[in-house]
Each structure stands twice: as structure tokens, then as C-alpha cells.
């Protein structure tokens, strides 16, 4: 058995080493410089407000996003897209098969929405723009096997393209279907809230090009941000609240038929 002197000797050495390691770790963390000189991540918590009652389905946001972020052309690749919901007038016979809502999103709304419905027959008809919801408790972040997708300290769910394996687990896990595989790199891509713009004080490309103000970027940590007023004055909902994802895209006027 070890005697007391040896025990003290061994434990002393151990403690010294752990203490030194702890100090070294602290210096590593402290030494991480802020990359964008005036932008401090901890000062921001990004969200978005979308007003379904105002969206006109022009498709500006879809085109702007594809242009700004070099998204591949074609109907399978979108960082943001617009859906048109059409809910016919309730028929007298509740078993009538015509009763169900229909959704369409021709090329994601990139070329607008050609008229499909007669003026008289619409019970309700509206557009719903969709994008990554930058969930606070994101399922995609949870399932990534390597840590290639993550939530930044300012609330944006980002993808590390150099680290992504292309396993597609996150594509499957996202309840909103907002992730896709970029065919050029075989890695995952999705809306990153135009991180290269918002960290410089610009707004996202989709909000910039929205003519009606249906889409508005918001910084929840900024007390002067208009999003606080919008959230207070409107009855807001998130998509799929039952999934408890902590989604940060808030919709005004979201109908129950929207999935």
C-alpha cells in the first residue's frame, strides 16, 4: 500500500496538472477574437416575422435568395420558397372529396404563381413563405453525427460545409423540410439567414426584396427592434408547434390548414 507521503506526492502532482490545464483552457477561450470587428455575436438573437396576410406571392424572395446565395437552379433546391394554399368553400356534404385544402409551389414560387383558381370558387387562398426556422432546440443540430451543423451564439443555425459528410441525417430530421443536398459539393445547404449580410448590418436578401414587408428580419435581443412590436400586436404562430423545436420564424395569420 502507498504510504501517506507518497499519496500526498501523487495527488499534489495531479492537482497541479489539472490546474495548469484549466488555465490553459481559459486562455484558449479568451483568445478567440471577434471576426467581424463591430459585430458581437452575444448581442444578437436573430428571428424572423412573416405576415401571411400581406404576402402576395410575387416570388421576389425566392429569386433574391437564389441570386444572393448561389443556390443551384431547379425545383429541388431552395433555401426559401413560397407555398400557395387553397381551401375551397365548405361544401354542403361533409363527405365530399373536394373539401380538402390544396397546396402548390411551382418551382418554389420562383416564377410566381400562375392563376389556377376561379375567382368565385375560393373559400380561402393565401401564400406562405417558408425557410429554415433557426430552431432554438433544433432537431437537425441534435442528429448531426459530426457537429457540422450548429446553432451560432447569435441564434442562427449554420452549416459547416468543410466538415459535413453528406450523410443526410439532418435533411431527414428537419420537420420543415428546409435542408437540401447541394449537388455540386454533396454537402448539406440551407438558409443561413444571409449570415454574411446580417453580421454587417444589412438585412437578409429575402427581406430586402420583399415589396410588401411580409418578411422581416428581427433581432430579439435589441429592445428597439420593430419585431417586438410586431409580436405584441399580432397573433403569431410557429410552424409545427407540436414538434417543440423552438422555431424562431413567427407567422401572423397562419391558417390551421398550413402544415
Amino acid at each position, binding site marked *: 500500500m502507498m504510504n501517506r507521503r507518497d499519496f500526498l506526492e501523487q495527488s499534489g502532482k495531479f492537482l497541479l496538472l489539472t490546474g495548469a490545464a484549466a488555465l490553459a483552457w481559459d486562455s484558449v477561450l479568451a483568445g478567440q477574437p471577434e471576426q467581424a470587428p463591430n459585430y458581437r455575436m452575444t448581442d444578437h438573437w436573430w428571428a424572423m416575422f412573416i405576415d401571411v396576410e400581406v404576402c*402576395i406571392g410575387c416570388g421576389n424572395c425566392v429569386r*433574391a435568395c437564389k*441570386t444572393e446565395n*448561389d443556390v443551384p437552379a431547379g425545383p429541388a433546391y431552395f433555401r426559401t420558397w413560397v407555398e400557395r394554399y387553397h381551401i375551397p368553400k365548405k361544401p354542403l356534404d361533409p363527405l365530399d372529396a373536394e373539401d380538402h385544402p390544396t397546396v402548390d409551389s411551382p418551382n418554389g414560387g420562383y416564377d410566381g404563381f400562375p392563376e389556377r383558381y376561379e375567382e368565385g370558387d375560393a373559400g380561402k387562398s393565401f401564400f406562405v413563405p417558408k425557410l429554415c426556422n433557426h430552431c432554438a432546440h433544433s432537431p437537425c443540430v441534435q442528429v448531426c453525427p459530426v*457537429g457540422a451543423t450548429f446553432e451560432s451564439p447569435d441564434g442562427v443555425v449554420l452549416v459547416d460545409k*468543410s466538415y459535413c459528410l453528406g450523410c443526410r441525417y439532418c435533411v431527414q430530421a428537419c420537420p420543415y423540410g428546409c435542408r437540401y443536398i447541394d449537388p455540386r459539393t454533396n454537402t448539406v445547404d440551407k438558409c443561413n439567414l444571409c449570415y454574411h449580410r446580417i453580421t454587417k448590418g444589412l438585412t437578409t436578401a429575402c427581406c430586402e*426584396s420583399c415589396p410588401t414587408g411580409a418578411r422581416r428580419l428581427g433581432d430579439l435581443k435589441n429592445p428597439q427592434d420593430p419585431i417586438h412590436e410586431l409580436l405584441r400586436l399580432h397573433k403569431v404562430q410557429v410552424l409545427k408547434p407540436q414538434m417543440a423545436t423552438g422555431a424562431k420564424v413567427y407567422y401572423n395569420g397562419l391558417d390551421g390548414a398550413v402544415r
Partner: protein
Amino acid sequence: MRQTFKDAEHLLRFAGLFAVGIAAFFALRAAFIPKGFGELGHYRAGALEDNRQRLPRFAGAAACGDCHDDVRQTLRTGKHAGVHCEACHGPLAPHAADPIATAAKRPDPLSLCPVCHQKNVARPAAFPQVDAAEHAGGSSCTECHVAHNPGLE
């Protein structure tokens, strides 16, 4: 100490193997885990900077008013006050950076205006919309409307 470790060389060899294994583990870990991983969370901290590496293609409405203040004043009082410049004029970051070298193109009204104002059942009823083909019999929108300050006609 010597008394404790008498007849225990086999244990020492075993401990030595473990020590080598653990050292090898930490060495490989240091080699394979990329720099910055784990600093801010379970991800590579450098990815934040990677996501910032893109040149904006849209300059933002604030940039346009610096030179085009007259248009900004016209817009301010009209129905298009909330419409940002690039919503109609397209991405203009190169033009904002160097206005002489990169000219901006004036959009064609008949191709542009119906994108928003074409009659569509799914659009809010209060939103001004017309059937572009019938509304003006094929003449250009700007023959009657001032694009930056469209009147109520």
C-alpha cells in the same frame, strides 16, 4: 516504494501499455480534431467565419439613397415607400460599389409590374391588382403611372 512494487512487474507492464494507449489516443485526437472544435460548442468555431465569407449581391436600400436622393424623396410620399430599390431593380451591389463601371438597367414595366400586380385569387383582396392584358390594352405601365410614386387610378 520498492517494497510496494516488489513482484509486481507484470502490473507495471500493463500500466505501461495503458499509458502508451492513452498517450496515443490524445495524440491522434489532437491530430484529427480540427482547430477550434469545441470552443463555442460542438462545432468548429471557424465555421462562423466561413459563413460570413460571401460577397453581398444586394446592396440594400440605404446604399441607393446616397446618390439617388431625388428618387428616395419621390418614394417617401407614395404607395411604394416600403418597396426597397432592389426589389424592382435587382441586385445592385456592384453598381453601388462602382456606379460608373457597372450601370444599372431600367426594368421593363410590362415585365416587372405584373409580377406583383397581376390579378390573383390568392392575393389579399385589398392589394391593388389588375389583369395586365386588359388593364391598359398592351401599353406600358409607366405611360400612366409614375413607378416611384404610383397614384390611385
